[in-house]
């Protein structure tokens, strides 16, 4: 039994964050394969060889009929059962931006009552009426079961989307909150939720929701891009931080970014799980 974590990053059909997602996952300690959607559909690569499946950012099929819609249809038609089995086997699924949009259209999120096929949440056009690239502050729900956000309280990441406003029936939102499935929320500079204020909340998302997980915490979707914070120089204020630290006789932290940490949490979860399995196996 391998102790490595194998991550699969989908590519093709207009997806475009696969390189940096693979790079950041690598920094997080995973072995990564970028796999074309058609290769997976044809069965030339098998999901069973992986423990982490990543739906990354991009404009799948041009996103002309709603972001992530056609990707979801395509995957449901051709891979639906294989993906459900992958989840049932206890593996991790991460959806970033277009990947998050795809997860909600597949019904993998929010996965209320273990139903992984019904669409009950949507990511729709930003209230500001346009695509927007900006860094946002995020506050993380410490009580969420999400395995990716362990030990992260707040972080900053870039958003880059035109359709990131999370919307759903009031009842659904309430259940997400009560189930602690709301993993992260857009926040102001003070770290408190943005309360709908633009641009801290960049898209008008209900309850400032930036990312949600399923009830198990193993499926996680978010609009911000952790893979785009893979190096300390990605941060918009790094030159200021560096200068500030210098004046205090310190060095700026050039080690692991919070973007990579988030991915590493997922990798570590799998490692712990497999060491448990190995232990069980020995016993």
């Amino acid at each position, binding site marked *: 039994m391998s102790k490595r974590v194998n991550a699969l990053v989908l590519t093709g*059909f207009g997806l475009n964050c696969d390189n940096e997602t693979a790079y950041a996952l690598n920094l997080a300690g995973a072995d990564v394969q970028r796999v074309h959607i058609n290769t997976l559909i044809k069965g030339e690569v098998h999901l069973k060889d992986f423990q982490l499946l990543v739906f990354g950012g991009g404009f799948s099929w041009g996103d002309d*009929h709603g972001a992530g819609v056609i990707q979801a*249809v395509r995957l449901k038609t*051709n891979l639906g059962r294989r993906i459900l089995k992958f989840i049932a086997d206890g593996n991790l699924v991460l959806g970033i931006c277009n990947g998050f949009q795809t997860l909600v259209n597949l019904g993998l999120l929010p996965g209320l009552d273990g139903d992984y096929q019904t669409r009950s949440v949507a990511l*729709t056009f930003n209230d500001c*009426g346009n695509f927007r*690239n900006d860094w946002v502050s995020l506050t993380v729900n410490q009580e969420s079961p999400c395995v990716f956000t362990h030990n992260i309280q707040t972080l900053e990441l870039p958003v880059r989307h035109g359709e990131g406003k999370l919307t*759903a029936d009031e009842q659904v939102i309430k259940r997400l909150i009560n189930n602690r499935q709301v993993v992260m929320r857009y926040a102001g500079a003070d770290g408190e939720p943005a309360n709908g204020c633009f641009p801290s909340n960049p898209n008008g998302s209900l309850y400032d929701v930036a990312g949600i997980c399923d009830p198990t915490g193993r499926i996680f979707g978010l609009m911000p891009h952790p893979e785009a914070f893979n190096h300390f120089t990605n941060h918009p204020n790094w030159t200021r931080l560096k200068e500030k630290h210098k004046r205090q006789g310190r060095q700026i932290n050039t080690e692991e970014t919070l973007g990579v940490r988030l991915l590493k949490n997922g990798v570590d979860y799998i490692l712990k799980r497999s060491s448990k399995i190995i232990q069980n196996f020995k016993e």
Partner: protein
Amino acid sequence: MPHRLEIALKPDLSDAEGENLRQKAQNYFGIELAQVRTVHILTIDADLTAEQLSKVQTDIFTNPVTQISSFAPLPIAFDWCIRIGYRPGVKDNAGDTAVEAIEDTLGIRFNDREAVYTSKRYCLKGNHPNFSHDRAIVEKIAGELLANDIIQQWDLYSSSGWDSEIGVGFIVPKVILDHKPAVLTVSTDSDAALQKVSDERNLALNPKDIPTIRSYFANDDVRQQRAAVGLSDPTDIELEYISQARSDHCNHNTFQGRFFYRASANSQVEIIDNLFDTCIKKPTLELKEQKDWVISVLWDNAGAGRFDDNHYFVITGETHNSPSNMEAYGGAITGIVGVYRDPLGTGKGAKLVMGGYGYCTGPRDYSGSIKPHLHPRRLLDGVIEGVRDGGNKSGIPTVFGQVLFDDAYIGKSLVFVTAAGIMPAEVAGSPAEKKRTSPGDLVIMCGGRVGKDGIHGVTASSESFSADTPAGHVQIGDPYTQKKMHDFLLEVRDEGLIQFITDNGGGGLSSSVGESALFSDGCAIQLEKVPLKYQGLDQWEIWISESQERMTVAIKPEHWERFHTLSEKHAVESTVIGQYTDTGKLHITYNDKTCAYIDLDFLSSGFPQWEFDAQWQTPADRGLYEPVISSPANYNELLTDILARPNVCSKEWVIRQYDHEVQGSSVIKPLVGAKRDMNSDAVVIRPVLDSEKGLAYTQALLPWYSAIDARSMACCTIDEAVRRLIAVGTDWDRIGGVDNFCWPDIQYDSLANPDGKFKAAQLVRACMGLKEICTAFQIPLLSGKDSMYADGHLSGSYNETHKISAPETLQFSCIGVVANITQCVTMDSKQTGDRVYVLGITRNELGGSEYYAHFGYTGMNVPEVYPEKFSRVYKAVNQAIRQELAASVHGIYRGGLGIHLAMTAMGGDLGMNVDLGKVTADQVHHDDIILFSETPGRFIVTVDPVNSEAFEALFNDMPYACIGEVTGKTDHFIVNGADGHLIVDIPVSELRCAWKRPFGALV
């Protein structure tokens, strides 16, 4: 029978698209609307069962959380409904992806006649009862906000005229060409006869070329060889091929022309034979000899330089002016997606890593009586959105750009697009920058299919804009199709399958196959193999069509199977359309019948060089002078008013809608500072993620100086671009340039172009300036393009037309390597107590400045570049950054010292206190001159006091001065005049407020 699915957001959800239209109607035309709701329409022209229709409706096209849909018209209330759909043959990207989704979901294949067409209808409700009678207002919204007649059709429905059963009916914009393709033979009896054919067919042949063309086809040997393949006089496809290749767009006849230049009315004629050879090629080749990092220049689709031992970067810049002036969105998206094919077609193929943009349009609030085809505001909106979708959907960060306004651009607005890529130094063991075709190689067309779109685009951009410009050359780029092709081609490249690759841009197959066949010295093309969007295209149309998203690739026959397998994996269409040969001939057949047979070397032989009279008139001869202005008293207001001028103020709204961080490589972003809202001098990316080397990019545009002297314009533009790169920490000796000239027509005509000789002289002088500065700064020109005919003929109030020429414009882009990205610096002040330095001398150079423009003056003292003196400072700045002595570095650009000190302060969100009396100046004592002169070669640097000694030591024998300090008092941006009196004291927040005043509300 077609089916029509209407989709809308649930009534209780806000409709961002409708709301956007409502606000635009209000802001642009003062039309008050109560509500706008959008209905998306899919017209499915395919034979589907009720069950199949229901499945695609629920499974694909209706989101149960947010949407409602129906195959009958949705009952949404309105006073007026505007339906908008594409004209037949216009690229409908969403329609194409709908087909893919339906096919996949139902497990069926559409036949050739089946398709999906998208359209929309907007349901408008007014604020008062009269609205339902005001057809004219709704027509204005439809025609001037929503639809462009060139690509779209629209209809209006009043609520009383609406049939709730029929709705908008079934509109199927299918192309039906009831036409049997045929090759025509063209008689060449006389020059006049051929000229007539050229005019009738829109060939845009230069009259001087006509005798050369006729004599070729009259040559006995040629006629004999042609007779052997069944040809006599030239065919239409041959003339189209010649016309494309000889167009100014492809052949750069202007830059390769012979100029008779006179520096003043009385001076001797100086003959400059070929501006390109003299001012661009020669200096660049000399620099290539000296600089081993220059890898490949002047022959390929883009230039290449070394990034590190294992990678090369490539860069090129283009303009897409004519199409963008006709259809702003379509022109711009086609422009950016098109320029992305250049790096992809450079060497054996480069991965795209960034894009840039430059827009020059009329003022956004233009209200003059002369009517441009599109109002500048609408044109700019469309251009911004076109580049947004083209860049974002390509997954390539759009990292840097500029937006300029000037009345003179209403004749022809300019759209610059730049692209850079990265490739491994070696591909499958051979040099990545080299490529050639060999006899026997297959000619493959990859990507999109061929339709009538884009026909005569090249020749149209070689003419001024007029009512006769064929609208057919406007198209809509498809980044989705191209992204698939990009991923596919990089995979086949890495497997070593590519012998040669180039893009299908201007001139289509005619250019790409014609040029690639020069390497093997021949090709044989079977035109019937080219996949078409619809039947009925003539052979010549297939050959020159500029349908987008296509590359031409040469591979060995034995690699076809693997190539084809990967092509299918990526869902990209690839077709073998012929073979390269060594016959010396371009040989085209259609169903085995020859329709073109022409010597490939014909184009490089015997055509007459274009000639231009170039007559310079000095600024003094033209009566320019320095205005007489006394020193202002209210500097607070003057400073904030200049900060709020359209060419100075914040344009954050453009930058934020461009994804500038995809690929995870961002180091220095376009917006920096404490509040992340100031324009960075340049951007830096980390294109190879596991390397700490960076690629820095920037550009400059200073067309206003051309009003005095285009030479100064060129020199200052290059200096600014270089200085911008230096400011972020780019290595001095690793900078390359890209020159993009946009010039009005320079061919003198006493009636049509009476100042043609002057404009020609301006071009000569700009090229001389380019040569001088690039040689002195040692900047090789990695790539460049020229776009002539930046003129428009626009109608005025009395149905008369006016020729409006754009200012002589050079966009200069610089790219360079940063040895260590962790040493990069931004422009924002960092810490209270830091010293504020100004490097360089300030001179009385207000000619063409923003300050003069504020008062309506031009002036005469245009800024001058002293490359030897400046470069010493630049090298020292480079050193200061490498030694980490500078907390912030910012160049002094448009607007001058006062404006850029304000930007440094706004960037840090910190106060500042400076004394103008300390600024090193050359015989300048007036505060307004010190504050607003645009003397090049200068920087503002803030330095930690503990580093100031070491910092100053680097500039020992150079002009510099410490003029004040950064303070913690954000309520006080303080400037003391040369005589010691306080002249500016204003809160930084007010500076920011003024700077954001014009466009701050736009998103």
